[in-house]
C-alpha cells in the first residue's frame, strides 16, 4: 500500500485509513526498514537528544530563576537577553549552533536546551514571586534563616509553576530536535521528514512522522503531569476526598 514517490493529490494528502494502513504495512521503504520501523528508530535518536536537552534546559532554567530571585540585579541583567534568545527563530538559531558546536548531536541537545530553558525559568520565577507577603512575615516572626525561607517556603511554592514550565517546554524540545535534524542528513525524524517531503521517500512516511511527533509531544506533556502528581501527594488527595467541616 505504500505508494511510490510520484505526487498526486491523493498521496499528498492521503486518507486517514491509508496512513493507518501504511503504519502496519510490511513494505520496505528504505533499505530493509518498513515505514514504521524507520520512523521509530529515527524517533529514538531524535527523542534521546531532545530529552537530554530538555533536562539540561530544565535544570539550568530552575537555577537561573533561583539566581534571579536571589538578586534583582541578576534579573535585570539577564532577563532581556533571555528574551532575546527566545526571539531568534529556531530555524536561524540552529545553523548558528551547528556551526559553533560542529556536531549535530550536540546541536540537538543545545537547541532543545535553549528552548526548554526559557519557559522553565520564567514560570519558576513567577512562582517565586507569587509567594504571599504573609508567608514572608510568618518566617520573619519565627526568625528563620534565609536558607530556610528558600528550602521550606519559596522552592516548594514554586514547584507547581516549575512543572507548568516543564509542560510547555517538553513538546518544544521535541519539535526543536526534529528541526535540527533537517539540517544534516544523518538520521533523526527531521532528516527523513525532509527526505519524504522532497520525494526521496514515500509520502506516508511524512504523515506517519507528523502523527508520531504529535503523539510524542502530547505524551511528553502528559508524562510531566504524571511526575508532578507523583511528587505532590497533596494534589492527589484534593479531588477524591471530601472536605471536612468543623
Amino acid at each position: 500500500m505504500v505508494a511510490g514517490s510520484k505526487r498526486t493529490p491523493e498521496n499528498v494528502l492521503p486518507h486517514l485509513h491509508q496512513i493507518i494502513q501504511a503504519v502496519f504495512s510490511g513494505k520496505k521503504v528504505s533499505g530493509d526498514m518498513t515505514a514504521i520501523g524507520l520512523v521509530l528508530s529515527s524517533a529514538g535518536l531524535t527523542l534521546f537528544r531532545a530529552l537530554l536537552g530538555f533536562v539540561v534546559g530544565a535544570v539550568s532554567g530552575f537555577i537561573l530563576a533561583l539566581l534571579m530571585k536571589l538578586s534583582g540585579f541578576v534579573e535585570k541583567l539577564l532577563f532581556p537577553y533571555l528574551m532575546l534568545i527566545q526571539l531568534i527563530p529556531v530555524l536561524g538559531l540552529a545553523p548558528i549552533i551547528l556551526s559553533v558546536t560542529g556536531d549535530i548531536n550536540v546541536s540537538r541537545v543545545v537547541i532543545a536546551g535553549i528552548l526548554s530553558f526559557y519557559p522553565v525559568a520564567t514560570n519558576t520565577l513567577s512562582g517565586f514571586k507569587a509567594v504571599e507577603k504573609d508567608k514572608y512575615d510568618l518566617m520573619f516572626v519565627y526568625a528563620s534563616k534565609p536558607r530556610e525561607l528558600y528550602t521550606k517556603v519559596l522552592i516548594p511554592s514554586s514547584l507547581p509553576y516549575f512543572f507548568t514550565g516543564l509542560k510547555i517546554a517538553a513538546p518544544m524540545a521535541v519539535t526543536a530536535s526534529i528541526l535540527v535534524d533537517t539540517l544534516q542528513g544523518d538520521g533523526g525524524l527531521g532528516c527523513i521528514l525532509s527526505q519524504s517531503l522532497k520525494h526521496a521517500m514515500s509520502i506516508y512516511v511524512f504523515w506517519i512522522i507528523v502523527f508520531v511527533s504529535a503523539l510524542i509531544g502530547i505524551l511528553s506533556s502528559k508524562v510531566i503531569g504524571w511526575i508532578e502528581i507523583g511528587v505532590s501527594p497533596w494534589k492527589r488527595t484534593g479531588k477524591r476526598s471530601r472536605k471536612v467541616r468543623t
Partner: protein
Amino acid sequence: MDEKRAVEIRTRNLGVTFKDNQGRDVLALTNVNLEIYKGEFIALLGPSGCGKTTLLRCVADLQQPTEGDLHIQGMTPKEVRLQKKFGFVFQQPVLFDWRTVKKNVELPLEIMGYTKKERSELADEMLEMVGLKDFAKHYPKQLSGGMQQRANIARALGLKPDILLMDEPFSALDEFTKEKLHEDLLRIWRETNKTILFVTHSIQESVFLSDRVCVLSPHPGRLSAVVDIDLPRPRSLDMRDEPHFNELVAKVRNSFEGGSV
C-alpha cells in the same frame, strides 16, 4: 487581679509614619502609651485605618516605630523575636499546601531545631488542644476555613511563645465557627497563661474575649481609651445576653473619639 503584676509590653510615645505613593508622610499611629501586663488578654479595637494592625506589627518587629519606643520584657521587639518568643496568627491561615496539618504545625519547631521526636510530640499536643487530632495527616486544602484557622493557632502555640499576637484571626469566619473558636481560644489562654494581643474590628468580640479593650481612633491613629472589662472568668457565650455585657459594649462604643463609629 490587684497583686503586683509584671509589665510585659510597654510603649512610650510610640508613633509610626509611613510614606504614601506620592512620598508624602502619613501619620499611621501617634503618641501611644500603653502598659500590658503578663498573662493579660488585650484587645486592640478600631475601624480600619486606626493603626491597630500597625501597633501589632510594631510589637512583632514587622514594623519599625518612627517615634518613641516599645519594650517587651525590657528588650526590643527584635531581641524578643530572635529569641522566638512570639506566636503570630494572621487573618488568613497562611498554611503551606504541601505540608500536612501536622507538618504545618511542626514548621516553627523545625526552625527552632527541635528533634523529630520532640516536634512530633509537641505538634500532637497542640493539635489535641485545638481539636484537630484526627486531621493531623490531612492537607490544608481538605479542611474548612475554621479548621484551617485552628491549625494556624496550633502552629502559633507550638513554640510555647510568651506572647501570642493575633491579627483579626476570626474575621473571615462565619458566626458559628467564630463563637466556637472564641470559647476554644479562651480555654487555651486559661490553660497556657500567655499574654495575648488580639486585633479586631468587632466591639462584641473585643468585650467578650479581653481583660481590657484598647480603643483606637483613626486619622491619625491613636489610642483614645482603654476600657476595663470586668466580666467574670471563665466566660461563657450566654454572658452576651446579660445587661452588663451590653453596658460594656456601649461604653466601648462611646469611647471612640468623635462619637460612635
